[in-house]
């Protein structure tokens, strides 16, 4: 077993080395395609985080006083239920508001420790039937003067613009990343095919003396998988750098201070990193299995 593993290891790396230029091209293509894919995911997360309150058609938020009485709450609910202009609403109580707060400031433990759920205002998130800006503004105004209401918040044009631009950026980068994933797949396929070609004689002899198909195939498949794995691994620092240098820059910018929530949490970044390595391996495995099954039959 150890002998076989050692053979697998040396054969794989001698293939990679023999094929160095093509191997590097394949690894870099995998990496760049995954960087684009990762960026697309990060933009999506960042936009979601920046506009968390404004998803699912929610057009305005009624913030209650933290000490609003049950009667005041009931009156607001009655209005929300009865108005024909309101399609749906959800109530976010203090505990839920606190959870949201914890997520938003995941990277700021100091702030998290100093905030108690009891000081956070509960709120109603309202989805109106007609999303037209004027109608929504008029509707929201009805709640401003009600008893127990602290304030009413409407998404500004800036937030809508952020959602729209974020969507455009993330779908375009996703599209280009997918095209590059296909390029990466083809490059890996070619890398493996060239390795097979370079070892034609050895493969012929191995078949002749009765080496098993897996023994012959595995080093070539591993070669492709190593390309995918390395490309995936290299894409992580690149994506991390984009997160630091672009996304965090935007979120801390004074000029666009509305975007303080435009960020990618550590847990989300970890998830993206896993997705990238997984995708790299999947693409590479597919490419090399394809190459091997095309050209290494008994």
């Amino acid at each position, binding site marked *: 077993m150890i*002998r*076989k593993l050692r*053979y697998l290891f040396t054969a794989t790396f001698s293939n990679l080395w023999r094929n160095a230029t093509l191997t590097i091209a394949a690894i870099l293509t995998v990496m760049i395609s995954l960087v684009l894919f990762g960026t697309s995911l990060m933009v999506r997360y960042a936009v979601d985080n920046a506009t968390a309150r404004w998803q699912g058609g929610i057009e305005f938020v009624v913030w209650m006083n933290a000490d609003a009485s049950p009667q005041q709450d009931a009156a607001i609910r009655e209005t929300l239920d009865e108005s024909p202009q309101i399609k749906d609403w959800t109530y976010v109580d203090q505990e839920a508001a606190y959870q949201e707060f914890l997520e938003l400031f995941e990277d700021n433990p100091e702030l998290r420790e100093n905030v108690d759920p009891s000081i956070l205002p509960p709120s109603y998130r309202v989805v109106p039937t007609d999303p037209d800006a004027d109608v929504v503004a008029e509707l929201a105004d009805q709640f401003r003067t009600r008893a127990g209401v602290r304030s009413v918040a409407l998404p500004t044009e800036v937030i809508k613009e952020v959602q729209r631009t974020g969507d455009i950026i993330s779908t375009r980068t996703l599209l280009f990343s997918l095209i590059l994933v296909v390029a990466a797949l083809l490059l890996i396929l070619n890398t493996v095919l060239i390795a097979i070609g370079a070892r034609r*004689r*050895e493969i*012929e*002899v*191995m*078949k*002749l*003396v*009765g*080496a*098993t*198909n897996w*023994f*012959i195939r595995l080093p070539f498949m591993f070669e492709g998988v190593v390309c995918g794995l390395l490309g995936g691994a290299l894409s992580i620092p690149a994506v991390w750098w984009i997160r630091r240098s672009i996304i965090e820059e935007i979120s801390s910018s004074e000029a666009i201070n509305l975007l303080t929530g435009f960020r990618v949490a550590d847990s989300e970044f970890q998830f993206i990193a896993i997705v990238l390595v997984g995708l790299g391996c999947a693409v590479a495995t597919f490419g090399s299995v394809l190459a091997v099954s095309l050209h290494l*039959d*008994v």
Partner: protein
Amino acid sequence: MIKLEEVTKSYKGNVTALAGASADIGKGEFVFLVGPSGSGKSTFIRLLNREERPSSGKIYVAGKDIGQLSSWKVPYLRRNIGCIFQDFKLLPKKTVAENVAYALQVIGRPNHVIQKQVPAILELVGLSNKVDRFPDELSGGEQQRVSIARAFVNRPLILLADEPTGNLDPATSVGIMRLLDRINRTGTTVVMATHDRGIVDTMRRRVIELDRGSIVRDQARGVYE
């Protein structure tokens, strides 16, 4: 050991390489396949090694119908069949000993077995003094001895030889034939395709003659024609 029943092999474009060939080769026999180029000798050999499948008919090797053999079992069939060729098929970047050892390594034989068997087989083929040479430092006859050592190191039941003396001068060929004869005397069945009239006439073994894919003669202790 080897049995062919009405074996036909046709390729795309209606080329028939073998047409209804039947033969029965016993354990320990030495058989020459003769006939002009394109008569089906190589196809005969390739069918026995399961490099090709018959279009119709059945081929039994050591009692097994190899046409029905699933492809993952083919390597195990080939471990019982040694093969040598006109062009030797040695790996140029490996030494004599490494070329022979390679055949054992890739089927997962442990090192201690390899270290014992490789010198023994190189002794048998008379190359004990050239173990560290590379193939391009050897004569044609010596290269063919390496290839025989590689084919026989795993002690197969059958040795298939496709024109093994095709690239060698007559004197060298005689040496190779002595070696094959010696291997045959250990009980190994040898099937050898050849054009070499002199060898066939001297050895006086069983001769199967092929012409345009059909067996036209099957003679014990035969001559070339």
